[in-house]
């Protein structure tokens, strides 16, 4: 793929994104996945982050509830039995039904250990970078197969995008291959760049990439930064 520069006038000539198929379970699943990715791109929050927020909020609520009950009861406002009396009953019951209580306590303890370790592990484990593709087989027949190394394709696309008017630097990463490849493009624009025009102009290199891959179209996520001098990178 060679570089291409799209002038403002070429905006009208830039190919419109092709129509996407609208039926089938695979398409619906793809739509759901894209929606999820969009939400994630907007907030930068992963599923773990959302789960953390929910669980920590829940812990906060429980703490407030327990503390409030204890404080109200300290002034005798609810009418609960005294803790010593509750404890005495629980103790008596535990002695009476020792097997059940022992089993339940050990099971609950083990469950807590597993849940706690799973939660802690989710915070520290390294997550694979989204959709980092290696060499991918795109067609397989009896006599052989066709595979694509995504990095050079992405580099060529990035070079094409970086050559557009208003773009100071660009990077690209293929995140899906196959019938409908998907690419993530990050572009650093000049402060006075016409963002919609650059967005339209990117259709030219995208169409070129689609032709190089032998597909009708590619899906693209475009990320723009305006007015900074650092080089763009896909984040």
């Amino acid at each position, binding site marked *: 793929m060679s570089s291409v520069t799209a002038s403002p006038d070429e905006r009208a000539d830039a190919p*419109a*994104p*092709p*129509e*996407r198929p609208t039926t089938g379970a695979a398409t619906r699943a793809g739509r759901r996945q*894209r929606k999820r*990715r*969009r939400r994630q*791109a*907007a907030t930068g*929050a992963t599923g773990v*982050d959302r789960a*953390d927020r929910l*669980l920590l*909020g829940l*812990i*906060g*609520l429980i*703490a*407030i*509830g327990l*503390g409030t009950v*204890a*404080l109200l*009861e*300290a002034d*005798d406002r609810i009418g609960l039995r*005294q*803790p*010593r009396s509750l*404890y005495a009953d629980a103790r008596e019951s535990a002695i009476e039904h020792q097997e059940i209580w*022992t089993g339940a*306590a*050990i099971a609950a*303890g*083990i*469950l*807590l*250990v*597993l*849940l*706690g*370790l799973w*939660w802690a592990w989710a*915070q520290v484990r390294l997550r694979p970078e989204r959709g980092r593709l290696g060499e991918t087989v795109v067609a397989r027949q009896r006599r052989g197969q066709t595979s694509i190394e995504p990095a050079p394709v992405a580099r060529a696309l990035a070079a094409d995008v970086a050559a557009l008017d208003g773009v100071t630097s660009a990077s690209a990463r293929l995140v899906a291959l196959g019938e409908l490849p998907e690419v993530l493009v990050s572009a650093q*624009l000049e402060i*006075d760049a016409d*963002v*919609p025009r650059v*967005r339209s102009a990117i259709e030219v290199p995208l169409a070129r990439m689609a032709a190089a891959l032998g597909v009708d*179209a590619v899906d*693209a*996520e*475009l*990320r*723009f*930064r*305006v*007015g*900074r001098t650092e080089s763009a990178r896909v984040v």
Partner: protein
Amino acid sequence: MKAVDRLLALVAGLALAGVGGLVALETGFLSADQPAVVVPRSRWDRGMGDLEWSSTSLRVAAIILVASGALLLVLQLVRRSPRRLALDGGPGRTAWITPASVRRVVERAVIDDNDEVRSARARVGRRRVRIQAEVVAGSDDATPRRVATSVEEAVGALEMHRSPRVRVRLQRNDGRRVR
């Protein structure tokens, strides 16, 4: 904020695992008539047997519980600033711009389009762009409207998926606020 949550979740997860392990271990030892490993059983037993709602220790623990719970809840409820803002896309296209980019575009537009503006500072959120600018003493009543128009035009030119509302606050360089 995400990093704080991660750290809190890590600590909470490890604490949960620790408490669970202690419960399972101590219960196992207790049922096997073995001495306790960590928990001072007889002291805790005596303490629990004397505990009343009005005990100072319980009251202090309750206050700490409410305060830390409220802090935790507020931390989770605070709306986080967006990492990216959506631009109008199309079939098979999603486009994003960073809030900092919008801020730079807006600040530049306000200063370039209005001679009376000496400096401008923008804050960009999901739904709102706030601009705070300093104008020269000779600015007139129409200045706020002109600045707002500059911001609206600059934001409109980006073709964002959701057009943010614009709020302008101007201050003259002699310290007086422009209304």
